[in-house]
Structure formats: structure tokens, C-alpha cells
């Protein structure tokens, strides 16, 4: 399933917080939690403040705190853009 990994980047207003490859991203949008795997349709969503969990290929998890942001998905590239974002 996860043959084509996702390339994920988390950016805040003044820096790139994290970027790398992952198999799954779970984020909290204004309408609820959303999990994204490879092959997801293009999406642009507003994030509500909360955790963004990125699962890497080896199963470890990277957790970032993001507030006031967006999530965009296209061609297995996920960009999480937030005014304030930090790794937890």
C-alpha cells in the first residue's frame, strides 16, 4: 500500500519546521481529524489548532503542534502551513 511514500513538510511563518518522507499524516482540521495516506486526492483544508502526527516509514512518529494553518495535499506532497508551528 505504502509503496509511494508521502513527502511531508511542516512550515511556520519564519522557518521550515520539519520535512521528510512519511507513510501517514494525521491532522486536525476544522471539520475533524483527517488521516492521509499515499494516493489521497488533492485537498486544501483549514487546520484547527492541535497536533499533527506524521508516521514515518519505520513506524516512528513525529508530532508537531500547529496553530492557525492549512493543510494542502497534492501528488503525495503534503504541506502543513501554520503561522506558528513547532515540533513536540
Amino acid at each position: 500500500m505504502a509503496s509511494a511514500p508521502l513527502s511531508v513538510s511542516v512550515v511556520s511563518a519564519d522557518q521550515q519546521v520539519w520535512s521528510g518522507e512519511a507513510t501517514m499524516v494525521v491532522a486536525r482540521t476544522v471539520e475533524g481529524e483527517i488521516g492521509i495516506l499515499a494516493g489521497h486526492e488533492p485537498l486544501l483544508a483549514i487546520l484547527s489548532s492541535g497536533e499533527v502526527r506524521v508516521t514515518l516509514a519505520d513506524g516512528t512518529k513525529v508530532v508537531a503542534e500547529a496553530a492557525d494553518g492549512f493543510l494542502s495535499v497534492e501528488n503525495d506532497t503534503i504541506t502543513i502551513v501554520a503561522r506558528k508551528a513547532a515540533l513536540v
Partner: protein
Amino acid sequence: MGAQLRVYRQKIKSAQTTKKITRAMELISASRIQKAQARVAASTPYSRAITRAVSAVATYSNIEHVLTTEPEVINRAAVVIFASDRGLAGAFSSQVLREAEQLTELLRSQGKDVVYYLVGRKSLAYFSFRRRVSERSWTGGTDQPQFDTAQEIGEALLEAFLREADDGGVDEIHIVYNRFVSMVTQVPEVVRLLPLEVVEGEEAPEASAVLPLYEFEPEAETVLDALLPVYIESRIFNAMLQSAASEHASRQKAMKSASDNADKLIKDYTRLSNNARQTEITQQISEIVGGADALSSAKN
């Protein structure tokens, strides 16, 4: 010591002291440019991501949004000027103010009223000296801009934009700032911020990547509502960072030439003072010789 010689020595000393100051400022600016440049680079992913997202929504949805639609008549335009807080930075502030004046003339010739939003103490001083009014101003921290300030400016501009023109609102917003090209070149640049022209040369998406059809959550309009203010903030923040980097580069250049000039002055005055000293010695010798001659001829 002759009077002339003393004057030259004083001038040398004063040039030396000035040089110490300008040299210190040069070194400080030089060390800060790197940091400022790094901050510009660090904020690029954010603004790129936002620009991409805005273009995606604006291109792939047919929603009419107040921020993107051109008003039929534009009566008032706002001009945001990004200058510096402190001087001694060469033409940094004056060139951006000159650019703003030209823009003002252009806007006036199109029959628009112009209101000003000022950033940096220098632009404020320019306006208050000429007894001209500005709508709002922000001072302090132009050499190390904070995102909170950008947010504040963005909010103030949006609020003015969303108000009716009869109510004191504006129909159009321009920003004028110094763009950092390289250590030696900083160009004043005018960008129209609102209404939005999303497709912009410098951040156009790569040709290979065709913008996909997006799914919006909750819906396109809400996403655009939330996205546009953020886009504006990021543009303003970018302008502030560019302006800060330019300020340091410009100051470094100005202070370098000031130090060089001080060097030249010191050299010139040293020559003159050597000359004066030599003249003095020569005169003393000829006085002594003349005196001795007179004495010996008196004896005989």
C-alpha cells in the same frame, strides 16, 4: 608648536574618532546581514506554500471574493512605506520614499486619493517634517522584524480595505519596500497587494506541476476567507524581512565608504601637518642662522 600645526592635529584626531565609530557600525551591519538573509530564506517555504494554495483556490473555483475582485471605481489607495528606524544607511530610506512619491503622483494623476501607512521612524520623520498626515505608523524593530508586527499591519490594512471608501476605507493597497538583490544592490520596489493579483512572476508554480483539482474543506469560500489574510501577512512579513536585509547591506556599504573617506582625510591632514612642521623647523633654523650672523657681524 605653531597654530597651523595644532589645527591639523585636531582634525586628524577628530577623523580618527569618527572612523572608529563608522568602522564599528560597518562590522556590526556586516555580521547582521547574514542573519537577515537567512531569515529571508527561512520564510520562503511558508510564503511559497501560501502562494501556491491561494493560486489553487483562485484558479480552481469560481468564487467571487471581495479581496480578489477589482472594484469598479477606485477612489482611495493606501500606500505602505517600509523605511528604516535609523539613518546612516546611505540612500536606503530616501530611495524608498522617492519611489513612494512617484507612486503617489501616478495614483493622483489617476484621480485617486492617497493615504499612507508608515513603517519605520525615518518615514515618519519625513512625513512629520513636511506636515503631512499618515493613517497609521509602526516604529521600532525594522532591523529585526517580528511576525507579530506583520500580523498587526496586515490586520490594519485588511480592516481598511474591507471598510467602504466613504467610511474612510481604501480600495487599493500598494506596498513600497527595498528588495534585497545582493550585498551591493537593493532596489526599491512597488507591489500592489490588494486587490490581489495572484499570478506573480517570482513565485509562479513550476511548469511541470499543473495545479490539481482540489477538494476543499470546509468549502472553497471559507478556505479563501481564511487563506487571503494569511497570504497578505506573509507578503508583508516578506517585505519587512527584505527591507531589513537591505537596510543592513545599505548601512554596511555607507559605513564602509565613510571609513574610507576618514582614512583619506587622515592621510591628507597628516601630509599637511608634516608640511607645516617642516616649514616651522625651517623657519626656526633660518631665524637662528640669521640671528648668529647678525651677532657675529656686530662683533667685528
